[in-house]
C-alpha cells in the first residue's frame, strides 16, 4: 500500500500468551488498553477507528472488546477475518485510515481464545467446503508436506528442523509473554510425539490464547501525544494468495515471495538491512523456507543461514527474537498484531532479558493466513517498521 502520508506507531500492547480462562474480549481489552495507555491517549474521543482481527470466536468481536473502552458509539469498529493473518490485517487497515487522512489516530487489535472452545488432540483445518479439508487436509499436514519435500530435495534431516525450535525457544527463555521458552535439546524436540511426519510436537506452535494491539497515528498526532520513541511505518502490504491447481514448488512460497518483494519496494529497505524479523513460524519448516523466500539468504542456503548463527542474536537478522509462534503459541487471530507489538518493544529497547543488542533499528513482520486449496496461503500481511528518533 502506498502511504500517502507518514504513519507512526504510538504504543502497543500484548497479553501473556498461554491457556487463559479469560475469553478473547477480555484479552483483547487488556492488550488494547495497554496500547492506549502507552500512547499517552487521554480519552476515548481521540480514537478515530478500530479494526479487530479474530478467526474463531464469533460475531461482533471488536465491539465486544471495545465496549468498556468507550469508543462504541464514537468510532467505527470493523471486524477482520483472514485466519492467521487477521491481527496484522487489522493493523494494516488502521494504518490505511491514517495514511489516507481518514483519521488522525486508529487502532488495530488481534485477539483470540481457542482453549475455552476447542477440543484438544485435533488439528486446525480449512473450512469444510474446501476440497482438501473434505479429503482430510489439516494445516499440520500442509506444512509437513513442505518439510517432506524439502528433506527429499536437500537431504536435510529432522534434526536440522529441530534446530529452529531450539533457537526460538532459547530466544524466549526470558520473555514473560512466551509460555514455551526454555532450553531444549535436539533430542527433546525430535523425541516428542509425532504430529505429522516429519513434524513432532515441539516443532508445531501450541494452541493457546492471547492478544496484541497497536495504536497508529499521523506525524502531527505523534508530536501532540509526546511520544519519545516514535516508530515509523515504512511499509504495510496485504496480498491474497495466487490460486491455481497446477504443480508449484512448495519448498518456496509464492505469496511470501511476492509480498516481501512488494514490501522491500515500498519501504526502500532490502532484506539484508532488516535487523529483526518476526515471521510465520507456526512450524519449524516454515521459518527455514522463509529465510530463502524473503531473500535473507540465497535459495538453497536456508540451513546454512541457520547453522552459521545468522538468524540468532548477534547474527545478520535476528529471526523470532521474542521466540516466535513456536514459543508463544499461535492464537490465530491475535498473532499478527502481537508480532508487531513485540517488534516495537524491541526497537524501543524495552525487552529486558531478551533485548537484541545493539538495539535494532529496522523490524519486519510476516504472517500468512488460511489453508485454502489451490493456494499456498489465502493471505499474507507484512510490515516494515523503523525507529524514528
Amino acid at each position, binding site marked *: 500500500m502506498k502511504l500517502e502520508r507518514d504513519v507512526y506507531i504510538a504504543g502497543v500492547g500484548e497479553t501473556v500468551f498461554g491457556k487463559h480462562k479469560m475469553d478473547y474480549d477480555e484479552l483483547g481489552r487488556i492488550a488494547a488498553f495497554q496500547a492506549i495507555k502507552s500512547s499517552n491517549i487521554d480519552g476515548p474521543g481521540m480514537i478515530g477507528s478500530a479494526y479487530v482481527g479474530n478467526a474463531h470466536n464469533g460475531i461482533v468481536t471488536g465491539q465486544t472488546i471495545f465496549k468498556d473502552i468507550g469508543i462504541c458509539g464514537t468510532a467505527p469498529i470493523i471486524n477482520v477475518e483472514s485466519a492467521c493473518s487477521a491481527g496484522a490485517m487489522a493493523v494494516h487497515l488502521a494504518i490505511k485510515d491514517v495514511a489516507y487522512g481518514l483519521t488522525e489516530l486508529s487502532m488495530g487489535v488481534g485477539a483470540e481464545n481457542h482453549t475455552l472452545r476447542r477440543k484438544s488432540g*485435533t488439528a486446525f483445518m480449512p473450512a469444510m467446503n474446501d476440497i482438501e479439508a473434505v479429503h482430510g*487436509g489439516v494445516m499440520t499436514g500442509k506444512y509437513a508436506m513442505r518439510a517432506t519435500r524439502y528433506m527429499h530435495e536437500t537431504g536435510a534431516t529432522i534434526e536440522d528442523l529441530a534446530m529452529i525450535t531450539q533457537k526460538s525457544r532459547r530466544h524466549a527463555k526470558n520473555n514473560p509473554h512466551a509460555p514455551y521458552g526454555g532450553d531444549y535439546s535436539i533430542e527433546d524436540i525430535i523425541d516428542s510425539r509425532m504430529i505429522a511426519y516429519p513434524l513432532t510436537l515441539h516443532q508445531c506452535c501450541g494452541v493457546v490464547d492471547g492478544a496484541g494491539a497497536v495504536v497508529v497515528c499521523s506525524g502531527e498526532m505523534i508530536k501532540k501525544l509526546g511520544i519519545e520513541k516514535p516508530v515509523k511505518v515504512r511499509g504495510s502490504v496485504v496480498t491474497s494468495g495466487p490460486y491455481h491447481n497446477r*504443480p508449484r514448488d512448495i519448498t518456496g512460497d509464492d505469496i511470501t515471495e511476492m509480498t516481501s518483494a512488494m514490501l522491500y519496494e515500498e519501504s526502500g529497505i532490502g532484506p539484508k538491512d532488516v535487523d529483526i524479523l518476526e515471521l510465520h513460524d507456526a512450524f519449524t519448516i516454515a521459518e527455514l523456507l522463509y529465510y530463502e523466500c524473503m531473500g535473507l539468504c540465497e535459495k538453497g542456503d536456508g540451513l546454512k543461514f541457520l547453522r552459521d548463527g545468522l538468524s540468532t542474536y548477534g547474527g545478520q537478522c535476528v529471526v523470532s527474537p521474542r521466540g516466535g509462534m513456536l514459543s508463544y503459541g499461535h492464537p490465530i487471530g491475535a498473532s499478527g498484531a502481537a508480532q508487531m507489538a513485540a517488534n516495537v518493544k524491541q526497537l524501543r529497547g524495552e525487552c529486558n532479558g531478551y533485548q537484541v543488542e545493539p538495539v535494532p533499528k529496522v523490524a519486519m513482520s510476516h504472517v500468512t493466513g488460511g489453508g485454502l486449496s489451490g493456494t499456498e496461503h489465502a493471505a499474507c500481511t507484512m510490515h516494515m517498521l523503523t525507529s524514528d528518533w
Partner: protein
Amino acid sequence: MAEKKKIKKEKEPDITFFHPDLLEIPKEGLPYLKGYKCKKCGQLDFPKLSPCPTCWSEDFDVVPLSRKGNLYSFSDLYIGQPGLETPYICGYVDLPEEIRIFAMLKGDVNTFKCDEEVELTTGPIRKNADGLPITSYMFQKV
C-alpha cells in the same frame, strides 16, 4: 429397498459419494477423475472452477484425467481432523496434465516416498452425518 424409501421421506439422506463432478466410477472399467477444460481458452482444471478464472467462460468439456501420477510430497498424520481415525496419510499427486491433486493415500505409514508413482483408487475418506462412509478418490502405490 422399502426401508430406504422410508428414510427418504423422513429426511434427505446424506450423500455417500462425495461429489459427482469430481470422480466417475463406471460400472465397467476403472474410476477416473474428471478434469474440466474451458471451451474458450483451453485451461484445464481439477476441481471444476466456474467461471474459468482466466477468461470467465462458463462452458467446459469434461476430460478424463490420467490415473497415474507422481507423488510430489506426503505426510503421515498422527493428529488429524476431529472425527477422523488416525493415523492417515495425505499427499500431493502431480498428474501428467500439469494438475496437482491433494488426496488421502491408501497404504501404510512409513512406506511412501517422494517422487514415486501412484495410481488412482477409491475408498472411504470420512463418515457422513448418518455415520456412513463417504467414498471418494484416493491414491495408492502402483
